[in-house]
């Protein structure tokens, strides 16, 4: 898919258009210069940040960087374990960053970082009621995804596999089930390891891919960012093109003599 084609096929979330279907995270980069090169290569227009206590004399370097690159900031609620913590963090992010968009993340424990669906649904409901544009990080459970959409979430973001594992899309059929019934964009969030994972997510019908670790902790983050950009574009094009059905027996591609 060329640059020109991506402009006529924007990602639309809550009425806002994005030219790139790759949403980046900023976690894991060794420094801001490395992060900048990766973000530029990725072509992303929407990128997550976390909210943390300010160190004395600490700056806002990542915000300055995103502003300079004209990339929209998407604060997350990473580290929150229950709905109350996530709602407070989202409200603080709105206050600090002047955006009512939030990547809602409520995880159950540190070893798996899997979403806690009960707390997630509770937090999503409160934040939607409070006027937030909510993009929830969720498990790949089609029923939970449906519930989140019914609550008014602007997108649903199922995991491919647990955060930071790089295990790719472990249950492609679940992702297809979510896509088949969703009326909001489905963004594959978490677990991407390499470009073919991002490509597969798009072939399955996801509207976008969100990733961080696979780029920021790659040996060459900028090169992997470019690979992810191309993987997402290739997967999107393949999805739109309509793949051939899979067949059990061979079918000759040359005419019989």
């Amino acid at each position, binding site marked *: 898919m060329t640059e020109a084609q991506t402009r006529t096929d924007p990602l639309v979330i809550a009425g806002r258009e994005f030219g790139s279907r790759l949403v980046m995270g900023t*976690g894991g980069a060794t420094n801001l210069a490395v992060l900048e090169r990766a973000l530029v290569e990725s072509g992303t227009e929407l990128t997550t940040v976390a909210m*943390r206590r300010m160190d*004395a004399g600490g700056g806002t370097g990542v915000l300055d960087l995103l502003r300079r690159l004209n990339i929209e900031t998407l604060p997350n609620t990473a580290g929150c374990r229950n709905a109350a913590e996530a709602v*407070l*963090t989202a409200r*603080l*992010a709105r206050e600090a960053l002047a955006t009512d968009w939030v990547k809602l993340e409520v995880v159950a424990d540190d070893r798996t970082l899997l979403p806690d669906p009960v707390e997630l649904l509770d937090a999503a409901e409160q934040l939607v009621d409070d006027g937030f544009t909510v993009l929830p990080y969720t498990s790949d459970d089609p029923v939970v995804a449906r519930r989140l959409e019914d609550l008014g979430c602007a997108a649903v973001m199922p995991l491919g596999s647990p955060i930071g594992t790089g295990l790719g899309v472990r249950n492609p059929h679940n992702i297809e089930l979510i896509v088949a019934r969703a009326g909001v964009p489905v963004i594959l969030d978490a677990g991407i390891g390499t470009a073919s994972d991002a490509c597969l997510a798009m072939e399955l019908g996801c509207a976008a891919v969100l990733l961080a670790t696979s780029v920021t902790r790659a040996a060459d983050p900028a090169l992997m960012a470019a690979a992810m950009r191309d993987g997402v574009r290739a997967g999107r094009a393949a999805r739109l093109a309509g793949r051939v059905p899979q067949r059990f027996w061979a079918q000759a591609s040359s005419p019989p003599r």
Partner: protein
Amino acid sequence: MRAVVNGVEWELADGATVADVLRRLGAPDVGVAVACRGEVVPRASWAATEVRDGDEIDVLTAVQGG
């Protein structure tokens, strides 16, 4: 008066405000938010919100993550 700011106990003058805490912390004017007693203190209220003895105040900003 004592208050806990970002997990550290601070000695503050009576009548100190949230704005005073931010000044002492060296917080920038933009990109930060304040929670006190588990609620957001809106920017417009920083100068008028007095810290009470025993308050827990968190000052947050955006960092790399996600």
